[in-house]
Structures are given as C-alpha cells and as structure tokens.
C-alpha cells in the first residue's frame, strides 16, 4: 500500500466557494490547453486507449510528459487499425501539457519544489468538477463532460506514484461512474481465465503476480483491478496499469531480471521501486480477463506453496476494507460492499499459502485455474 499512500486533504460540498473554484480551475485549464494546442500543434502527441473497455483519447503537449503518460498504459493503446471497430466518440478525453517543455504557464498553477507537499482535492458542490493539486501537477475532471485537463510544471519531476499511475484518483472516479469498481488486488490469467489475488499490503499479491508472469501466465495487475459485472452472473477484471511497485531488496532477491528496469522512489514514503511491465512483456499483458477464482495469498514459513479452500467471508474480509476505504474517492460504502460480496460469492475462493520456493507459486496458480476451469 505504500505506493498508494498519497497524502491528501479533501474539501467538498457545502461551501459555495469550493464549488465555484473547482469549475473555474477546470475552465482555466481547458482554455489554456486549447490555446496551447493551437500554437503548439507540432508538439502535440495524441493516442487512443481502451480503459476498462471504454475508448479514451489522450492529447499531450510535451514529449517527456507524453512518454510518462503512455508508458504505464502502453498495453491499453488502441492500434490505428482497431479504431475503426471502436466507438467513434471517446468516453473520456484527457488533455495535459508540460510547462517546462512548451513554456505555457497557467494562472493559479504553481510548481512546488517540495514534492512531498500534501496534495489537495476539491470538488464542486454537486460533484461534477473535481480538482487535484499536487506539487508538479494540477488537474481537473469534468465528470459530466467526460474530460480531464491538467497542467504539469515539469514532467521530469513527477513522482514515482504519478509515473506509475497517471491521474489515478480521477481515473478511479471515472471508472466508478461507469460501474467499474476498483479492487485492491492482483490478477493473472491464462487463455482469458483469471485468478484475482486479494489481501492487504505485504500479503504477497505482487510476488504471486510477478512469479506467474515470469512463468508465462498473463499479467493484468498486482495492486489494482477494475472489476465489472458481465451481466450474466460473472465478473471481468480489467488491467488499469502495467506498473508494479516492488521493494528493491525483494526485487533483487526474487526478480533480478527487473532490476535494470527499476525506477527508484525518490521521496521518503516511496519505499518501493517502480517497473513498467508493458515494455518488457508486451505479449503477456492483456487488457481484460474473466475472473474464475479468488485466491488469498499469505506468506508462510515453509518451503511449499499450498492451496486451501477459503470461505466467501474470508475473501470479502481480505478484499473489502482496502478496496472500499483506502482508495481515493472509493469509499462507496454499502454499495461497494454489495458488489464485492456478489463478486466473491460468484467464484470459488482459496487461500494461497506462499512458501519459500517461488517456483511453486505459479504452479499453484495454474492448479487453481485448472480446477475452476474443469
């Protein structure tokens, strides 16, 4: 959970000043971006992505920022030839620019040298506009129009958190507005059939997901999954990012092949290193899988990895608190708990007791998939 611990203060609701300000910030960002787009057309990068199955258009002014935004979601890019089969209009447009690259400032946007500064989230009274202000990033989300606009002071100074999960809180809110529940979990798959791993930080989600990836299984997530009902009693799991955050010591001991690609944290609370997997395993990062089972990893002091049955309650107890209470904007309370309970009740649940021999972990995952697919 360390990577998700974004210090944040929040203000919303009844104060009309907040309501007015959130809309004003969005309007100012949008106007400035459009002005910049007109005069910097040659510096514009545009891409189309499929986020949780929805078409999203991203326009960026500044090459370094474009690279930063693209890398964690590169596996979700829609190829030019595929766009013809996709809906003609994107459900979300994201417009960003890098002031350091194109020299375009925005009134009210101030870059802070102190990257540990507490981020501020404000929202309009009715919840339509949401603004997030961070040390080097000010972004605003118009939920009604389906548009996010953001200013970046210097893309080279974005934090590891921002590099791994660009616009994380806005996107989680956008997903939730569309019935996609963010679940704090990992997800791997084989032939489109997935096992979701639930548990708190340190339970082994990343270890299971990355050892499974190394053994040839498909990887969708090791920390956050977009969960959506398929309307037929089952649930799909969407990959939201290709980024993984691993303790540097653990990476060197268990995943040495990732070390040369690690992006170390620079802030005191960034105790894990970032690796962007889309560039390393492009053939093993599908965007979606049908979830066939839930496994609850826990580290045990023995050599072997063992699979045991778990109860539905065990699974909800491990999934719900960190999914429904710790994610930005995700405190969906009773409705979120209903969704998670419905999901967990629909699939077999297992304890996955992780022994010291890492080679056994993907075999155990495959045994679960074989059992539930039989």
């Amino acid at each position, binding site marked *: 959970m360390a990577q998700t611990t974004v210090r944040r203060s929040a203000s919303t609701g009844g104060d009309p000043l907040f309501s007015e300000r959130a809309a004003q910030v969005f309007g100012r960002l949008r106007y400035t971006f459009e002005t910049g787009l007109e005069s910097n057309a040659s510096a514009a990068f545009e891409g189309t992505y499929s986020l949780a199955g929805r078409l999203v258009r991203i326009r960026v002014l500044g090459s370094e920022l474009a690279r930063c935004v693209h890398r964690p979601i590169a596996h979700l890019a829609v190829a030019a030839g595929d766009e013809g089969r996709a809906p003609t209009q994107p459900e979300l447009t994201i417009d960003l620019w890098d002031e350091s690259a194109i020299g375009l400032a925005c009134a009210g946007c101030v870059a802070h040298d102190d990257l540990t500064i507490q981020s501020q989230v404000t929202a309009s009274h009715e919840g*339509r506009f949401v603004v997030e202000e961070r040390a080097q990033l000010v972004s605003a989300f118009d*939920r*009604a129009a389906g548009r996010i606009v953001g200013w970046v002071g210097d893309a080279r100074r974005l934090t590891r958190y921002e590099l791994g999960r660009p616009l994380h809180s806005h996107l989680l809110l956008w997903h939730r507005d569309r019935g996609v529940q963010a679940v704090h979990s990992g997800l791997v798959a084989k032939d489109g059939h997935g096992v979701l791993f639930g548990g*708190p930080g340190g339970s082994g989600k990343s270890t299971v997901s990355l050892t499974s990836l190394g053994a040839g299984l498909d990887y969708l997530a090791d920390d956050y999954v977009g969960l959506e009902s398929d309307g037929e009693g089952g649930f799909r799991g969407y990959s939201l990012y290709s980024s993984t955050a691993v303790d540097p010591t653990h990476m060197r001991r268990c995943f040495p092949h990732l070390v040369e690609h690690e992006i170390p944290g620079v802030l005191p609370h960034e105790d894990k290193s970032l690796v962007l997997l889309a560039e390393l395993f492009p053939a093993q990062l599908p965007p979606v899988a049908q979830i066939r089972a839930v496994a609850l990893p826990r580290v045990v002091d023995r050599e072997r990895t063992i699979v045991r049955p778990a109860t539905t309650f065990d699974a*909800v107890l491990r999934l719900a608190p960190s999914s429904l*209470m710790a994610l930005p904007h995700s405190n969906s*309370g009773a409705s979120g708990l209903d969704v998670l*309970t419905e999901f967990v*009740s629909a699939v077999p649940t297992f304890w996955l007791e992780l022994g010291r021999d890492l080679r056994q972990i993907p075999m155990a995952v495959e045994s679960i998939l074989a059992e539930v697919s039989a």
Partner: protein
Amino acid sequence: MNPLTQAVTDAAISSTHRIELNSADVAAKDIDGEILVMNVANGMYYSLDGAGAVAWRLLAAGHSLLQTADVLASAYGVDPAATLDEVTDLAIQLVDEGLVAVSGASTSTEAPALAAFDVDGPYTVPRLNSYSDMADLLALDPPMPGLAETTFIPSEEV
C-alpha cells in the same frame, strides 16, 4: 457518557433499548452467517461470528437488547440474565465504536421468531472482533468526503 452507557446504568430501561446502524459512515454485510462491518469514516472494520453474528442480526432487525438476549438464551440453552449482560456489553461496544446509535425503547413485547435465525455451534460470548490496519493508512490519507455518493451526471443532461 454516551446514551446507551447512561441507559444501561439504569437497569429498568436498558434492556428495552434498540439500536440502529450509523448508515452514514458504516456498511455492514451478512456473509454466510458471519458479519463484516466497516466504518468508512475512520478505516476500522469488524467481524462477528457465532452468537455475536446472531446477536447482530437480531439487533439490526430492530429487536431490543432484552428480546435479543431472550432469543439467544433460548436458542443456545444458556442463562437469560447473563446473556442480557453480554448482549448489553456488545451493544455498548458497538455504540462506542460509532457503528450504531441508540434508537429508543421498544414498545413491542413480542419475541422475534426463532426460526429466522440459524444457530450453529456452542454458545460463545458475543464479541466484536476489530481490525485497525486500515485506520493507520486513513489517518494519513483520508477518503474524500462528499464525493462518495455523488451521482454521475450523464453528459446529455449538461
């Protein structure tokens, strides 16, 4: 002193009190006979099983402490007076944790139907198991108030 604590100091009225979920901050789910309760305001979460889960269901259904204790005592074959003390202790804990509020005295003298509640295993003192691992995180990173239940506005209505 909170209302229920005050109330239970007066034995004449404590047993007729009922409680209701603090639904603004608390979500609860009955999952295969066990209860999960989350306080999204502070990150604490809780579980109840066995007789504690049965007691939660009875209390959540609007039964008074006395009615709840009577059902438990009858179902498990244990002493009603001792059970009332234990149910009262549980109710005080639920109030102190901010999960429920006292909703007043029950005017009904009718005991709830036993058949509605599965009793499995021997009686154990109703207990609220608490988990604080999320609370530390939320102290640093509080969820954003107000947005949680904000309804999305479809673009065609704007």
